[in-house]
């Protein structure tokens, strides 16, 4: 059967305004009536006993209904029990007092005193109810400071921005939970799951509290975004009842979502400095915008970079495109110009060197000594040198590129010596050595050294997932070797790199 308790509970916030209105109006009418009687002013309206009895009866009935619905709401809603208790008992008291008042309706001093104290009780009950819905500092938060002092209200806690001001965090100094993750939760979650409220017994204002979770279990499972309630609830369609934040509240941005997902997937780090973490480029872009600067210091100015890029593109006949909608990061492609692009032309890229993330020098005329400017391109993620005259000596300009993920050396004069030097590239994921003198052994040994643990874990879990899917399919075929878990993931990674 349908739970009508919850349905009526949801009517509480509507019904509750009836007794407030009725009794306040009654108070006003009684005062006017009293004045009229004392001054003998017949033009002022005076309540007849019958009218008073009717208004009191209506008021009492609505007060009892409000209290009952309120009780139903407290049973079904996710409210903090301690905060509800005060309001609840005041509400019950108000309902009882309303009925008592009905008995005193004959008038006289007892009735007047009774009505006055009843209105105080009603105001208190209503105030605590308001605090429950809007937060405890809702009423006073907008008071002008002078009035606040007059009423003895403690000054409001300084806003988040004001706290940050004394020591502005930068990309280098920021810690991941305090300066990146916590501010998101503070803005979007803590008004209901924080120090003032903990709906569903859940607080999201500290790492420990998230791990502890609420009545539905832990909100955070490090390394498991899909299993973390925090991410699950946020990822639900906004129309869904369980979606968080509730539909009417401000929602998290796509960047927020990406950050949280990445944060949970990378083990929900706490004290780690942002600059020391392994950040995917998309995450790094977002963090660079939020924190200002990136791991190498200040981010170049987009406008100036794009202007310099446009001039260089025209002067050198090369293609330059921005890689992101608002960062200064560039893709520079000199391949279409061929051999007419040489060392002198590469040296002219100086003004935009700090912004280049993809650089295609394939089939150009660059040489080993001419590669020196590449060493200053600390942001490089992808580098094509295929089909150039580059040899092992030229790689000295490449091995300092700590962020390089993709290196294409196909058809160059690289040998095993050069391949061995590439172990200095901590983030290298893809290396192409076809049509060079490099041997498979050298590539394999480099692959073994470059394997990073997290990647292996990911491969393993992908394998396991595939295994599960196939079982679920009940495919009646010879599964054979293919499905065995990868026992030597290192080989798979080495195998992914092209061998000569």
């Amino acid at each position: 059967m349908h739970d009508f308790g919850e349905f009526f509970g949801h009517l509480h916030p509507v019904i509750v305004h009836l007794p407030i209105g009725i009794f306040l109006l009654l108070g006003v009418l009684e005062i006017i009536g009293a004045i009229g009687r004392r001054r003998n002013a017949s033009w002022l309206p005076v309540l007849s006993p019958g009218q008073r009895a009717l208004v009191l009866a209506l008021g009492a009935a609505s007060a009892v209904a409000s209290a009952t619905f309120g009780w139903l709401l407290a049973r079904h809603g996710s409210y903090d029990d301690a905060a509800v208790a005060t309001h609840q008992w005041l509400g019950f008291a108000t309902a009882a007092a309303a009925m008592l008042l009905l008995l005193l309706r004959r008038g006289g001093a007892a009735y007047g005193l009774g009505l006055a104290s009843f209105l105080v009780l009603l105001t208190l009950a209503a105030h605590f109810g308001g605090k429950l819905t809007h937060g405890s500092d809702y009423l006073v938060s907008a008071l002008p400071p002078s009035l606040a002092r007059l009423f003895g209200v403690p000054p409001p806690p300084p806003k988040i921005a004001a706290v940050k001001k004394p020591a502005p965090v930068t990309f280098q100094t920021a810690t991941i939970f305090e300066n990146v993750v916590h501010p998101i939760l503070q803005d979007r979650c803590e008004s209901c799951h924080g120090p003032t409220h903990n709906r569903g017994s859940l607080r999201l204002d500290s790492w420990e509290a998230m791990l502890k979770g609420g009545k539905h279990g832990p909100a955070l499972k490090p390394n498991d975004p899909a299993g973390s309630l925090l991410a699950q609830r946020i990822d639900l369609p906004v129309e869904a009842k369980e979606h968080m934040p509730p539909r009417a509240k401000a929602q998290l941005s796509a960047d927020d979502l990406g950050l949280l997902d990445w944060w949970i997937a990378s083990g929900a780090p706490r004290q780690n400095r942002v600059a020391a973490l392994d950040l995917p480029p998309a995450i790094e872009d977002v963090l660079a915008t939020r924190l200002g600067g990136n791991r190498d210091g200040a981010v170049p100015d987009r406008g100036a970079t794009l202007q310099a890029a446009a001039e260089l593109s025209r002067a050198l006949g090369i293609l330059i495109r921005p890689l992101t909608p608002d960062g200064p990061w560039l893709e520079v492609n000199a391949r279409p110009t061929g051999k007419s692009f040489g060392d002198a032309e590469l040296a002219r890229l100086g003004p935009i060197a700090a912004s280049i993330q993809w650089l295609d020098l394939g089939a150009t005329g660059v040489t080993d000594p001419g590669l020196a400017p590449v060493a200053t391109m600390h942001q490089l993620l992808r580098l094509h040198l295929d089909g150039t005259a580059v040899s092992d000596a030229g790689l000295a300009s490449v091995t300092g590129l700590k962020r390089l993920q993709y290196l294409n050396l196909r058809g160059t004069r690289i040998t095993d010596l050069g391949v061995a030097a590439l172990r200095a590239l901590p983030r290298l994921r893809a290396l192409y050595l076809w049509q060079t003198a490099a041997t498979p052994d050298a590539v394999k040994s480099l692959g073994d050294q470059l394997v990073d643990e997290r990647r292996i874990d990911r491969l393993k879990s992908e394998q396991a997932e595939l295994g599960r899917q196939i079982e679920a399919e009940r495919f009646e075929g010879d599964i054979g070797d293919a499905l065995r878990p990868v026992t030597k993931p290192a080989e798979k990674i080495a195998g992914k790199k092209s061998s000569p």
Partner: protein
Amino acid sequence: MQSPFDPAVARRHQLEWSRRTFLGKSAQALGALALGSLINPRLLATAGKAASDPWTGILSSPNFRPRAKRVIHLYMAGGPSHIDLFDPKTELNRIHGQPFPASFTNGQQLAQLQNTKLLARGSSFGFSRCGLSGQTISDLLPYTQQIADDICVIRSLHTEQINHDPAHAFMNAGSIIKGRPSMGSWMLYGLGAETENLPGFVVLMSRGPSGGEQPVSARQWSAGFLPSRFQGVQFQSHGLPVHYVGNPDGVCQSTQRQVIDEIARLNGFHEEETLDPEIRTQVAQYELAFKMQTSVPDLADLAQEPASIREMYGVKEPGDGSFASNCLLARRLAERGVRFIQLYHRGWDQHGNLDTDLPDVCRRVDQASAALIKDLKQRGMLDDTLVLWGGEFGRTPMGQGSGRDHHINAFSMWMAGGGIRGGFSWGSTDELGYRYLEDGQDMHVHDLHATMLAAFGIDHEKLIYRFQGRDFRLTDVHGQVARGLFA
């Protein structure tokens, strides 16, 4: 550089129009005004730039980080059978020859099987688990089985059009209405190409020996309402890709240059007079044709390719019009900076003789498709080249004599490279391969387009062209990016 959106440019043209209108062309005034309102101000734009300057795309920066730089679309025209190639169905094999459950087909659109008795038709072909990932691929495609770990098989694709030509149009332009730009044209409009020496959108065509295949109309690579410089250019598969690129006797390149420059100058006058944006296209085409006089012979010189590479693709004779030869040419086009390369192979329309004709067409296509992936990979090009392999729809799990009919509720396609994760499949179909499952991985053609644009850093909701007072997109008002496909 003068911005293509500079309102000053549009204003100047408007002023000139009104002056002319008043000063003596009153007879033409009505037509002139009509034309003026048809002209998209964005295109007037390029005034201040020479008409022959390369087009670098309407998007000055991407909407998010791009992964891919070019597309090679291996278009299997006719509708390959997903049931026999990528989507094995044990249950369908079990009920082979029995009536197809009416609960699946009631009230559904059918092509040629309407009002016939529907019988289930299992697959006659075996499947294997391949690679480390264990992807299931038909034994009809032994070479594709070798690249299982590089490809993502989409099993939940579905379309809205059940006949070849409209279905091609839907796959290419996201609409069956004539005059809508194809996806290659949209890409070229948005991003430009990375070469000035070849068209940015090239189409190649091959087919089987029978000659009975469905034709593919040139409207499939049309630029629609976009300026025609963005339309696909079909190259010949036999011999030299473009006819008559050589100079006649007595004409040298420098004479040719002078001729082109003079024609461009005269066209410039004409353009100022008429303000027809298509004149710009014509000037650009003259320039491109001049450059192709040298770039095309170099492109087509497959003798530059070592024998081992030609063997890998299975090219018997370069330029013989085969799919293999086209694949090799496609790689050479990709290397030269062409943005969108579409290879149609006709011959997948097995209404009958499926058990003999399907293996035949697979043999013609399988080796070269896989070789293209391997070749791109060894060159380090697969990271930024998005390869699509598939047709305009699939084929029914119900038999049609000795074959299968057209089917739009589910079909398979594979994607590789360009940031797409390999070695897994996306989406699934019901136990008979009849309909895609709504499991969050279902993929409509609009979703495919949105995902493809996303690989290039383009938000499909932001690549817009205003035509006749309405904003148009490749995905119209639909499309959802399948983020799970990306590594």
